[in-house]
């Protein structure tokens, strides 16, 4: 296909040693009118310093309330092939494991029905296919579902749960992140495909506090693997790290957030009672340090990007939950959280924002969790303490 648009501004973004999204869109544009018009509209956006996309509306496959994000050009007359340029989300696998066979099939389907462009995994976690028109949505869904795949979540619904690679490829995972994500995906199909929440709800599971999936920053429910026992220390390996040039005092001890470590040049000591299980020392000295004892997860809630209020990080609600199949305790907690949100949440209010508005105390009472010190997020932030009638009678 001949070049359709001149793109001097985008061409600038092909310079330099690193891969360029412009180069990839140009490759797709050589075979796809949609990708060509996407390129043309993007060049115009760069020139005019404004975006020309609208999103939302009435688009999807029958029976589903999510999985397709309607995307429309406000310059449909100039770029008719992207008049509709919808995004399709395919439910990702736990840990994002795919066979090369699936990837080839997915690309063939997308070349046939879409723009040929994908950014694989968006920040949502889903397998993301970029740009198709409304008529092709049902055939795309039929192609994927006939191969055992399903749409992911979008809109005011449970978004496709996602997790780090966990025990499949990491020795530090304290929980079966893949199993938990799979169990939640199977359990909450209705909540994912038939939006009924005030707004979106994301579950992300990380095997340890290194948090490779960034659950603490971008999930309404963050599940982070932890342990109850001591950190086992191999002093010979500590000595090896020092011998190889690691500055243990500066790089490990001084960076311990709870200052529970000491090093005298020979022996590394850890006061486990004051350890907050941040994983910094273990991740740095993988051969010398190892968590021991009972494994489980810390459950946190409420992180999100800026919207009604600014960006928030997740807040501990259960310091330690033993997570074993069939994960009933976790599922029950999630349902109680949704019940609270359904009862009090406003339209477009994330659950974390609701808890900030109503108060953690009310939330904990509703879901039936006892208050514990680990839930204190910002000590002494609020000088007021409100006693209830029940407290006064005690």
């Amino acid at each position, binding site marked *: 296909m001949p070049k359709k648009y001149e793109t001097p501004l985008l061409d600038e973004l092909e310079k330099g040693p690193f891969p360029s999204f412009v180069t990839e869109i140009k490759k797709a544009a050589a075979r796809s009118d949609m990708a060509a018009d996407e390129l043309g509209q993007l060049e115009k956006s760069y020139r005019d310093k404004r975006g020309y996309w609208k999103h939302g509306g*009435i688009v*999807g496959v029958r029976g589903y309330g999510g999985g397709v994000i309607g995307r429309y050009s406000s310059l449909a007359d100039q770029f008719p092939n992207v008049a509709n340029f919808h995004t399709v989300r395919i439910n990702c696998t736990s840990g994002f494991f795919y066979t090369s066979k699936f990837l080839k099939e997915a690309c063939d389907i997308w070349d046939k029905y879409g723009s040929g462009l994908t950014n694989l995994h968006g920040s949502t976690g889903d397998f993301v296919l970029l740009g198709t028109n409304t008529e092709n949505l049902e055939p795309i869904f039929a192609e994927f579902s006939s191969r055992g795949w399903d749409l992911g979540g979008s809109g*005011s*619904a449970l978004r496709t749960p996602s997790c780090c690679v966990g025990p499949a490829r990491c020795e530090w995972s304290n929980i079966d992140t893949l199993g938990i994500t799979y169990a939640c995906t199977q359990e909450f199909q*209705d909540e994912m495909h038939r939006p*009924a929440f005030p707004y979106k709800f994301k579950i992300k599971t990380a095997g340890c506090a290194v948090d490779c999936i960034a659950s603490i920053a971008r999930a309404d429910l963050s599940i982070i693997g932890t342990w109850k026992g001591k950190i086992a220390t191999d002093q010979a390996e500590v000595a090896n790290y020092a011998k190889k040039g690691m500055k243990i005092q500066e790089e490990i001890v001084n960076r311990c957030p709870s200052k529970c470590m000491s090093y005298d040049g020979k022996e590394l000591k850890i006061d486990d009672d004051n350890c907050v299980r941040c994983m910094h020392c273990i991740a740095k000295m993988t051969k010398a340090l190892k968590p021991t004892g009972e494994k489980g997860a810390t459950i946190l809630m409420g992180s999100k990007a800026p919207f009604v209020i600014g960006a928030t990080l997740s807040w501990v609600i259960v310091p330690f939950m033993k997570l074993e199949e069939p994960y009933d305790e976790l599922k029950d907690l999630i349902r109680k959280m949704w019940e609270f949100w359904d009862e009090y949440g406003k*339209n477009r209010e994330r659950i974390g924002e609701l808890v900030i508005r109503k108060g953690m105390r009310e939330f904990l009472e509703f879901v039936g969790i006892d208050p514990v010190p680990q839930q204190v997020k910002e000590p002494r932030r609020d000088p007021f303490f409100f006693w209830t009638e029940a407290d006064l009678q005690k």
Partner: protein
Amino acid sequence: MEKAEVAQKIYELVEKSTGKKKLKSSDIQKTISADLSITRDDVKAALRDLVDEGKLIYTYFGGSFIEIPPK
């Protein structure tokens, strides 16, 4: 109450609010379950049938809503 009757009530509620207020699934569940003294699960089941049949659809306008499909 028969599922079809519940579905009819849901459809009437959505039809009545068309052009006035966009209804979320939870609005419908709360209203119909209270009006008919049935569980929210019963309402959800009937709503699911209506969507599967294409009589109602999900839309997204800054949030997900249930609406009658455009003609």
